[in-house]
């Protein structure tokens, strides 16, 4: 939301000159900035960096039913991938779970990107008055302020066996028996994730679109580009930073998800996050840590690939 404030302020020409900012930065390099940054740095050190380090260390430890013991063994990783190579080309549970999680990631990414871009495009290019733009934008963000559990529960009266959708389908004669796959299914998971996270696409893409110099679009039209050509050759490349930020956010959220897949999948669908959660419940900490490290590597590889993808396209 601050991004919009950004954009709006900038389009009004309210920007502080770079020179003034540099001037303020030149002065005062004493201890004060270090003291000011210290609380935040300390929080990240104690509650983010050290926990990550602990996870990596513990993933090499041994465990018994009651305790975890320092060691240096790859046993946990062996257990995670137990029998995976021997069983190829059949997939072991671990590979299947990762593939299924990845599948959700890709489908939800495609859905949120398409929907998010369309909405952001409409807001940025078709709504002419700033006031209406702000109102529409706020309308999109209000649901963000409510609990995600409530937002998931709210699908029950619509998609349940006796829900509105099934009632409507039956009364229209489309089907005789209620559709079972509407709730607690892959479909419900994708729907709920799209419902929850499309906003994370809309905000950064809208921000990027608002920064596009409108005369570039005029120029493309004057040079004879069709609407579609303008979109693919001018607007989408210029919206790339927003698309990228939104994609990274949605992908990382979905790949690590265990709540939505758990609740909307009726606790029947596997995901990497759920495996970790279950292993924590059974106090198999080193095993959970090994899974977490693998998940982390997978997510970082995904983010890195996204960044690369964009850089390569830029160079072509």
């Amino acid at each position, binding site marked *: 939301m*601050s991004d919009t404030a950004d954009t709006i302020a900038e389009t009004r020409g309210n920007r502080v000159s770079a020179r003034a900012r540099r001037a303020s930065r030149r002065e005062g*390099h004493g201890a004060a900035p270090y003291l000011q*940054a210290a609380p935040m740095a300390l929080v990240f050190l104690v509650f983010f960096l050290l926990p990550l380090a602990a996870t990596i260390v513990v993933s090499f430890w041994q465990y018994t039913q009651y305790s975890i013991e320092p060691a240096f063994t790859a046993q946990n990783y062996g257990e995670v991938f137990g029998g995976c190579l021997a069983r190829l080309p059949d997939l072991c549970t671990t590979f299947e779970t990762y593939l299924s999680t990845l599948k959700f990631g890709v489908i939800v990414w495609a859905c949120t990107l398409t929907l998010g871009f369309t909405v952001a495009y409409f807001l940025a290019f078709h709504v002419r008055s700033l006031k209406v733009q702000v109102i529409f934008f706020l309308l999109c963000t209000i649901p963000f302020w409510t609990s995600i559990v409530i937002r998931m529960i709210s699908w029950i009266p619509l998609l*349940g066996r006796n829900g509105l959708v099934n009632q409507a389908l039956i009364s229209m004669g489309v089907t005789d028996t209620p559709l079972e796959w509407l709730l607690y299914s892959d479909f419900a998971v994708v729907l709920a994730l799209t419902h929850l996270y499309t906003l994370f696409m809309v905000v950064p893409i809208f921000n990027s679109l608002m920064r596009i110099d409108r005369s570039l679009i005029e120029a493309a039209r004057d040079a004879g580009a069709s609407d579609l050509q303008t979109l693919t050759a001018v607007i989408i490349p210029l919206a790339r930073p927003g698309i990228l930020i939104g994609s990274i956010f949605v992908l990382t959220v979905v790949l690590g998800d265990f709540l939505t897949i758990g609740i909307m999948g009726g606790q029947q669908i596997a995901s990497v996050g759920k495996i970790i959660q279950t292993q924590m419940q059974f106090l198999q*900490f080193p095993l959970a840590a090994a899974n977490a490290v693998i998940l982390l590597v997978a*997510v970082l590889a995904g983010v890195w690939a996204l960044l690369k993808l964009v850089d390569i396209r830029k160079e072509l």
Partner: protein
Amino acid sequence: MRETRPRSFYVLASVFALFLLFLYGPMMAILVLSFQGPEGGLVFPMNGVSFHWFEKLREGGGQVEIGPALRRSFRLALLVMVLTVTFSVLAGLAFRRGFRGATLLLYVAIASLIVPSIVVSLGIALEFRLIDDAIKSLGMAWGIEWIQRDFVSALGPFTSGLGAHLTWTLPFGLLIMFAVFNRFDPAYEEAARDLGATPWQTFRHVTLPMIAPFLIGVAVFGFTLSWDELARSSQVMGADNTLPMQLAAKTTTVTDPEIYALGTATTASSILLVLVAFTIATLLQRRRQRG
């Protein structure tokens, strides 16, 4: 500007309308269903109209027992809000002046946003488990009696839970402060200094009033992100529960509309909070511009 709308406008406008329906439709459904009569169920059609489920929620003792979790979540969210605002403003000031390691801190903050929440939650739980083990063996080694007798775990909503929430709220707070200070004109502060104000006076009487409306934004972010947080909370609250955890645990067992009443109540209070906060922010902004 063109006078007639192109056809694409109508297509996109209907997509947008459908998007809003998609966003609000389900929420409307539970809003309506939460006002059912005592015989009401989880789906349409409505079975009478009453405040029965809201009263039941207030009295407690129904399927959804929320009292302690609600109070705990509220206190935690308040604390997270205060710390988020304070630490974000301080860090924002530090980034303006520049310091060695600034880029590193920014990258760590962004990493904290994109590392999956379950990994952060697990990491903090492991860290605290190691701390527990250390405290216990210290207690044994030095013969400290209360540790041997009473100490169970350092995990809890206001230790590990608080930290887990801050890893989620602080990056947002910092990014907002970036946006604020990027278009902040230092001329006002220079004027204050030229007039002989101390750094504290400059901050208190010049900088703070100018950034106050945005700090309300940071506060609202801090409060609601913590209030609704679930993924990072999952492993770090120790023996206690927060409200969203309680709710998530109920989703599979609850069979009456009390949970819808709770949904309506929390949604209404969240939206009310946001509206009040933004009204105050707008008023502050206006007063500043007039003064």
